[in-house]
């Protein structure tokens, strides 16, 4: 499956549009990570636990979107956008959406 955030897959002709596909996941961090982050906040710097957590979650969102596109019979998703929102205390939603297409 080809993923791009351009309007098409460059160099390939789009033969069919399937419409919007999206994937999302809501993740909460566990309390241990929160405490570790609180301690890290004294000295500053990268909060590796959070970075990994969010990357993992985003990866899952992408996977869900790809699965949906596959079900439609697409072989590429174009014009992809990411969105992040914190829905509730300590949890954030990672949302990804795009247009499923079939290219040659």
């Amino acid at each position, binding site marked *: 499956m080809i993923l791009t955030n351009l309007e098409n897959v*460059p160099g390939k002709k789009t033969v069919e549009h399937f419409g919007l596909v999206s994937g999302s996941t809501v993740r909460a961090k566990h309390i241990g990570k929160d405490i570790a982050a609180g301690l890290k906040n004294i000295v*500053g710097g990268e909060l590796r636990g959070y970075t990994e957590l969010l*990357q993992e979650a985003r990866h899952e969102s992408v996977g869900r979107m790809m699965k949906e596109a596959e079900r439609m019979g697409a072989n590429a998703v174009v014009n992809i956008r990411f969105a992040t929102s914190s829905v509730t205390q*300590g949890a954030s939603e990672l949302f990804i959406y795009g247009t499923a297409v079939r290219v040659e």
Partner: protein
Amino acid sequence: MESLINLGVFVFLLALGYLAGHAAEKKHYASIIAREKETLNLPAVTIRHVEDEEMVESAWLVSGSVCVGLDYFKMVLANLRKIFGGRVGAYETLVDRARREATLRMKKQAAGADIVLNTRYETSSIGQNAGGKNAVGAVEVLAYGTAVIYKK
């Protein structure tokens, strides 16, 4: 006596935050500048139009993200700043570091490509709750774009 201990802890955290945070930031900036020089041959642009589509060999989505937190000293400084208003330098450098680091990580995923097109940034504050209280002063930056290899 108790208030004296509290004050002592506060001053200790402040000093620790200042020293460790300052050193960490300096080190991070040095590493960012060095890696930016290394990746100069792979430009990340916001252009989304491909000049000659026939010349494109392959294209794929790349992304890089990082979550960076403030140190205690800067957090206190930023909170003081909120009383008087104006530029909050502590947060400016924090976000700058996060964006540049995210860009570098994105470029790392795009290794071997000629260019990264349609680069976009997503910033979200971590620990900033709907309730208002900021548990952790941190930001997460995501950079993403489409890496393209041209036919030689």
